[in-house]
């Protein structure tokens, strides 16, 4: 395309404005987490006090622990279930596999609030008290599709004869699974794991409906505090959550890039 100077300038200005729109609130929030004053309109100096406070606040620390615990357990379980599921479906006839794959679209297309409500109804009906474990169950359910959809393409890329060859050479199917298949699809599993972990850390709506005040996660704490006025410690919490998700995404991105090259 032949672009005039005017078009190019417009394009640059446009992109700059979009980036400002997207990042101004985040940057302001990060800046305020280092602001000595409680006020949002005055900068009175740099401080790390809010971060220190966060690490001395038992309710925030508890929520942090819950968030990480839930994310770790949900990620591990969903990685195992999702990977096995992908392997199993890969071996199935197409019709059967299609049905199962479509089931995976369900949690991805259902609005979060409906997913949250539906799980809450089921737990309450079954008289399972809402808490950490119900939240973990819900997280596993919405994490599995991410693992599944990361592993499936790797399986399709794999040479199907490898597994057959291993079996023909007398390898036990289980051994063939972890000696032949798993190493081949490892990059996909890894991406899926990271995605699941990120989604789990990131979730608010589903956690809100499937957990309780007893074991709040970080987003629940942020939600409560928005109802009660803004506190700088929440900026610190938000900043830390943002930075950790950022780091995870950088990891995922590098991972996928390496795969593309390899």
């Amino acid at each position, binding site marked *: 395309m032949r672009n005039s100077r005017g078009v190019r300038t417009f394009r640059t200005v446009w992109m700059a404005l979009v980036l400002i729109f997207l990042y101004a609130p985040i940057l302001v929030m990060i800046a305020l987490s280092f602001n000595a004053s409680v006020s949002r309109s005055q900068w009175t100096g740099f401080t790390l006090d809010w971060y220190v406070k966060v690490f001395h606040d038992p309710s925030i620390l508890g929520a942090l622990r819950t968030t990480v615990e839930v994310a770790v357990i949900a990620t591990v379980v969903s990685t195992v279930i999702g990977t096995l599921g992908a392997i199993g479906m890969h071996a199935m006839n197409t019709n059967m596999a299609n049905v199962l794959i479509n089931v995976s679209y369900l949690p991805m297309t259902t609005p979060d609030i409906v997913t949250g409500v539906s799980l809450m109804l089921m737990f309450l009906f079954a*008289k399972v008290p*809402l808490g950490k474990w119900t939240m973990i169950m819900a997280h596993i359910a919405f994490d599995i599709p991410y693992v599944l959809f990361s592993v499936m393409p790797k399986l399709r890329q794999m040479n199907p004869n490898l597994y057959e060859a291993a079996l023909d050479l007398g390898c036990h199917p289980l051994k063939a699974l972890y000696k032949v298949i798993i190493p081949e699809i490892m990059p996909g599993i890894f991406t899926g794991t990271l995605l699941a972990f990120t989604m789990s850390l990131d979730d608010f709506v589903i956690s809100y409906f499937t957990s*309780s*005040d*007893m074991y709040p996660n970080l987003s629940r704490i942020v939600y409560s505090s928005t*109802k009660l006025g803004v506190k700088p410690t929440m900026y610190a919490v938000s900043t830390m959550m943002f930075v950790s998700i950022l780091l995870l995404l950088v990891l995922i991105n590098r991972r996928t890039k390496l795969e593309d090259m390899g």
Partner: protein
Amino acid sequence: MKKIAIILLVALLVGALSTAALAEADKPFAGTELKVYNCYDYIDEAVLDIFEEETGIHVNYLNYIDNEALYTRVSTGAEVYDVIVPSDYMIERLIKEDLIAELDLSNIPNLENVLPSLLDPTYDPGNAHSIPYMWGTLGIVYNTEMVAEPITSWTALLDENYAGKIFMMDSVRDTIGLALKTLGYSMNSHDEDELAQAGEWLMAQRDSGVVGGYILDQAKDMMANDEAAMAVMYSGDALYAMDKNDKLAYVIPDEGSNIWVDGMCVPKSSQNKEAAECFINFMCRPDIAQMNMEYIYYSSPIKQVVENLGEEELASTAMNPTDEMVARCEYYNDISDVAYLYDDIWMDVLM
């Protein structure tokens, strides 16, 4: 010399052991975990540390937004709590639905510290199920610089001069209650027609555009920062805002308002009832109540604390309303039999 040293050492060790043993006997509930479920920002958490140190009971302190949220949690049995702090009308409802336990008052000797006027309330005769935690009134906080005339009536909330700067509460009973009061009805109305009128009053107010928002605790910060002209508020939040901003005043409107008591109760499902009573007793200790009141700014029901109030505080409508003001206020009663009417109106207003 050496012998003496050894004897001293032995004495010291034995002494240490016996005090340790004593301490054990003193802490019959050591190691218990107590789940205390209270409103946000409604305790000085330093008090909990003292309690944990003195009794060895570990307090798991949890928060809810309002009585309705508390009720939902407790009634669905979603969780088990040991101490909850519902308001008067909710206590009445929880008693009616058999969700809270009868207290063993012999475990709560500090009950004698509670102001006689707050004892044996209508919502819980004989304090069989609840011990007052804090009390107060509902009123309007306004900025005397922005609002020229002193406010005396709830109708000030309709004043279009302050459009967008009037904040209502995101709370069913309080907001519908004040509309009922304005219209001359009881805040505990069971009458469909009266309630419909209250709903219309609130919707007309909303549609005229005067309302800046339906919010909760944010209102105190907004008032403190001169961002709002007036806001409906509990007396305790009013005291907090007035402490931050000299221009604010608190009024209990002439039509009357709500007087409320939040009481400490033990749900039936609690497995640690005695430890819970120990906690309730602790909260009624004058020094603890004093600390707690200084932190959260609400009026304490403990005699000794009231006697310690300064002159200014005694004169404050928010902290210490006169008998005449209290007389025009009413407690909320349980209206759960017509809750659906309140709910209906409230959803019409809010949604």
